[in-house]
């Protein structure tokens, strides 16, 4: 089963026995929970579009292992063309879902782990890459969704892992046994964790010798004994429980994050991909972050496309589309959005081959891409709110709109252009609210800021990669400075 259908994916999730907490209760059936379901639909879309001839050229790839047709999310990039296609696929999915479709973290994790474990084995004589390849083959053949889990809770940011008041604030090896390791700790902000079949854990930062037990990477089934999930709240999430689809803004799709807790989870050696080799932790973090910073040049752009379209519709429905300042704001939004896309494409086109054979993005350009992502979606959102008008946050509920008495009042006073139904105006304003302030704002705004690393992390990488000395040489040459 190299390609699952959407239905097969949904059925496969139902077979998992995950321990999920949401709003203080254990969720027995995450797939059908009204708060979780839209996020499942987003991942399901990655399976459905792979089956569609209109999208398969981006959504699928050829496995370098067995030349079979696989979902691109399970693919190791074999060329810069693959890297470019990844970004295009992400833009497509952002356009179709208007939300975070979650599956990128696994793709970015396998591509980072592939090259780093290869280099570890080459230098240390370990067998991590061999183990990884076995996992990768299963992932491709079974078309698995994998959660790439990197971010630890981190406790006191001023202290390294081994000096934290609580040793579990970074995922660590708590015990080594002949047959495997036992891990404790947690991973925070885990995108799509509850929609994943497996998890691929990586260290959260460069580790030193004293933190060797925190330099740990492994794969585990998402429902392994000892793993539990505490679902993250999103702004306006309980609107999904109200039975008012207009008020939800985007009824079908969404994203999610969760705290993933490891309570003495046993990992057999065959699933361990790093166990104390701290000197390779930095490379793994940088490469995963680099791939994920590239990702945002696609997915956020796709959601941006939706938001720009929604803002333009709002302008149409408000009767403001002919105003020159509205046109100019829409132009600015498109300019910003396409700039992000340009960065995503550029860091892909300038990618290079690793020792293991897969392709890595251009790290400088990927970090420039993500640095822009920490800013431009906010400006696009601001302009969308400007164009939409205050009604997007003061509008009456759908229940009022449907009310037998006051519904007529809502219909009358919330109408913009006479030829456009009030309901259409309400729907597009709620969609803008969803992306800028509601559940999807988690992905479009704050995730743009902190996902794949906070802004300062990119600035450090830009400083490292920026080739400043060469720039000085250029200036000296033109200025006639001989020293």
């Amino acid at each position: 089963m190299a390609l699952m259908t959407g239905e097969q994916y949904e059925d496969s999730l139902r077979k998992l026995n995950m321990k999920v907490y949401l709003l203080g209760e254990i969720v027995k059936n995450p797939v059908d929970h009204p708060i979780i379901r839209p996020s499942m639909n987003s991942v399901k879309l990655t399976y459905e579009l792979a089956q569609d001839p209109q999208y398969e050229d981006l959504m699928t790839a050829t496995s370098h292992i067995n030349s079979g047709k696989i979902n691109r999310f399970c693919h190791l990039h074999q060329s810069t063309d693959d890297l470019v296609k990844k970004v295009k696929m992400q833009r497509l999915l952002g356009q179709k879902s208007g939300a975070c479709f979650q599956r990128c973290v696994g793709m970015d994790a396998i591509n980072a782990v592939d090259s780093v474990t290869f280099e570890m084995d080459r230098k240390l004589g370990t067998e991590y890459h061999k183990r990884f390849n076995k996992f990768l083959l299963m992932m491709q053949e079974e078309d698995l969704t994998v959660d790439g889990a990197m971010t630890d809770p981190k406790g006191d940011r001023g202290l390294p892992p081994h000096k934290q008041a609580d040793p579990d604030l970074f995922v660590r090896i708590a015990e080594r046994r002949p047959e495997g390791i036992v891990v404790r700790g947690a991973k925070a902000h885990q995108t799509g964790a509850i929609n994943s079949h497996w998890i691929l854990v990586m260290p959260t930062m460069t580790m030193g010798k004293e933190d060797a037990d925190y330099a740990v990477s492994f794969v585990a089934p998402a429902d392994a004994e000892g793993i539990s999930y505490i679902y993250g709240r999103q702004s306006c999430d309980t609107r999904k429980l109200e039975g008012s689809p207009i008020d939800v803004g985007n009824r079908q799709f969404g994203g999610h994050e969760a705290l993933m807790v490891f309570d003495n989870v046993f990992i057999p050696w065959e699933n361990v991909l790093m166990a104390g080799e701290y000197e390779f932790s930095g490379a793994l973090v940088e490469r995963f972050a680099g791939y994920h910073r590239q990702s945002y040049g696609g997915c956020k752009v796709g959601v941006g496309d939706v938001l720009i379209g929604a803002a333009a519709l709002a302008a149409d429905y408000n009767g403001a589309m002919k105003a020159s300042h509205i046109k100019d704001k829409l132009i600015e939004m498109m300019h910003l959005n396409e700039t992000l896309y340009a960065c995503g494409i550029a860091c892909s086109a300038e990618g290079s081959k690793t020792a293991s054979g897969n392709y890595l993005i251009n790290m400088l350009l990927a970090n420039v891409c993500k640095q822009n992502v920490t800013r431009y979606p906010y400006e696009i959102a601001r302009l969308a709110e400007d164009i939409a008008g205050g009604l997007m946050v003061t509008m009456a509920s759908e229940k009022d709109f449907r009310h037998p008495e006051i519904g007529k009042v809502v219909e009358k006073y919330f109408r913009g252009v006479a030829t456009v139904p009030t309901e259409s105006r309400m729907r597009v304003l709620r969609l803008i609210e969803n992306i800028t302030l509601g559940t999807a704002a988690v992905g479009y705004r704050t995730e743009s800021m902190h996902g794949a690393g906070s802004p300062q992390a990119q600035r450090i990488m830009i400083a490292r990669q920026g080739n400043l000395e060469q720039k000085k040489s250029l200036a000296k040459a033109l200025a006639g400075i001989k020293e």
Partner: protein
Amino acid sequence: MKCVGVKYCGGCNPHIERSKFVDELKKILAEEMHLTVCRGQEKWELGILVCGCATACADRPEIRELAPEWILVAGPNVDIEPTPVAEMARVVALKIRKYFGGRDPHEVA
């Protein structure tokens, strides 16, 4: 072997409605031939590569191998010539007919 195949690009940011174009083309040619949408590596005598924008990222050697001749729709262009979107299906249908030179395409296959 099927005669005329349709291969889509991935559709990340299309400037034309690709499926609408193909539907129109099928309608125009309904009584003359059957268009097959690519699902695998089947070979055709003539291929229609339907790309959403002028980049035409699906125009790659391995795709070109699926047929000896291609008509390239890339955004609002047919074989690199700017073409009004409303005219595209008709223009492509004429090219298909010209390619087969009045022959029955099924017979050619």
